[in-house]
């Protein structure tokens, strides 16, 4: 009889522990370990002048209007450079979630440009750990200015320049991201023997989030080659400014020593120097439209 009561007591204790197994534990064990991809390393597809690892997802169109004004040291009569502006218009589209293409046109040298950006790796935590995001950009620029000397044989290929870049970025914390951008520019025809056809540069960019929608961005490219452009000294482009995101728009407002907007122009053709006050105020406006929707929602 005593043995039976001990048995029953043991069983009750065992089943008590069993029944107390928290529903919460079952839920936590069953929640699948997902790959947590890092999003919003930067607020837009450009750090300032140069590309960031951010891309347009499939079906998204980015309309970009970029202005660079003349230099602040133009004086008060020229309203500190605001009287003259250089414009770049661009249309950029995500073909797939990892391939984005863009076309653009700038009045500087009447240049058309096109690029493709491949998203190769995405920073992630969770089921798969990847410390950085990596993308590759390849672009071509076509100068359409009339050749200065119409009497000599002029080649179409002389108008072309190519750029290849690898972008490596890491979102270090919610508020701070960095990116390294080794870059290569090849210009088919340069003005003098002193101007290099090939330019090697290393870019470094960073952004510091100041609030949910505003960040402070900086970008610097170190150009390795001997540097002249049209017999002028070429300087490394440095840009500092703010990104302001409002719903579908991102406004990038900044100061830079480059007049050109595309890689081929700000890498190797920047003749302005911060020390001398050749500082341009510039802005990029980006507006994203969703052309293709993804989800087929059930009606509810």
């Amino acid at each position, binding site marked *: 009889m005593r*043995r*039976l009561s*001990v*048995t*029953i007591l*043991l*069983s009750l204790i*065992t*089943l008590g522990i*069993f*029944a107390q197994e928290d*529903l*919460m534990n*079952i*839920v*936590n064990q*069953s*929640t*699948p370990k*997902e790959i*947590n991809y890092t*999003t*919003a390393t930067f607020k837009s597809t450009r750090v300032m002048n140069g590309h960031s690892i951010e891309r347009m*997802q*499939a*079906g*998204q169109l980015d309309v970009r209007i970029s202005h660079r004004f003349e230099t602040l040291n133009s004086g008060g009569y020229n309203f500190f450079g605001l009287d003259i502006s250089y414009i770049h218009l661009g249309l950029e589209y995500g073909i797939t979630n990892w391939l984005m293409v863009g076309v653009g046109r700038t009045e500087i040298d009447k240049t058309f440009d096109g690029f493709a950006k491949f998203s190769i790796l995405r920073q992630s935590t969770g089921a798969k750990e990847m410390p950085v995001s990596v993308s590759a950009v390849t672009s071509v620029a076509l100068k359409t200015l009339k050749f200065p000397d119409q009497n000599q044989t002029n080649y179409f290929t002389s108008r072309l320049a190519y750029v290849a870049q690898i972008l490596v970025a890491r979102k270090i914390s*919610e508020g701070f991201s960095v990116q390294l951008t080794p870059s290569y520019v090849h210009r088919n025809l340069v003005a003098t023997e002193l101007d290099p056809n090939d330019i090697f540069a290393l870019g470094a960019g960073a952004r510091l989030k100041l609030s*949910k*929608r505003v960040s402070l961005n900086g970008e610097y490219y170190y150009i390795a080659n001997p540097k002249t452009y049209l017999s002028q000294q070429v300087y490394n482009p440095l840009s500092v400014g703010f990104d302001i995101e*409002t*719903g*579908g728009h991102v406004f990038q407002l900044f100061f830079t020593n480059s007049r050109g907007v595309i890689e081929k122009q700000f890498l190797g053709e920047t003749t302005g120097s911060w020390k001398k006050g050749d500082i341009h105020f510039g802005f990029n406006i980006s507006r*994203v439209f*969703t052309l293709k*929707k*993804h*989800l*087929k*929602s*059930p009606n*509810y």
Partner: protein
Amino acid sequence: MKRIFLLAFFLNIVFAVNGQKYMTKNGFIGFYSHTPMEDIKADNNQVVGVLDISTGEMVFQALIKSFHFDRALMEEHFNENYMESDKFPKSLFKGKITNLASVDFSKTGTYDVTVEGDLTIRDVKNKISTKGTIEVVNGDINANSKFNIVPEDYKITIPGVVRDKFDKSMAVTVTMKYTPITAK
């Protein structure tokens, strides 16, 4: 000695079947807001839920990043600006069926229930009470409910500039198709 263990074993099985738990890993939660300016709609088909029919307790957990929108940009803003899902990756509901006695889980049929519990979003816990239905069919249990939540109740700040794009409250729909967890 052997008889004692056999008896203990059988007793455990008998009581274990009575504490039957049901689970799903693909529960559905969707939310919807309609205004003349904009429709906002998102689906999550990876909700993990557990239901204990002996106590009427239910728990479900949804990862914020598993809510999918038809517009990628909207999904990015949802995670980055509104939900801050890197800081608050999960949302949780812990509650129970208050009129458990009116549900007969062994009989096929549809039963109206009232569920009360705590909903935690962005680490803010609010008590909610809602009506729903429990449908018992072929040994599985389907639970459905619709209720409204106000974003500001969970410290989700919507800037004044875009407040008109959102309805005052979001209409939430929950559809869980539970299957029994086999006894351990």
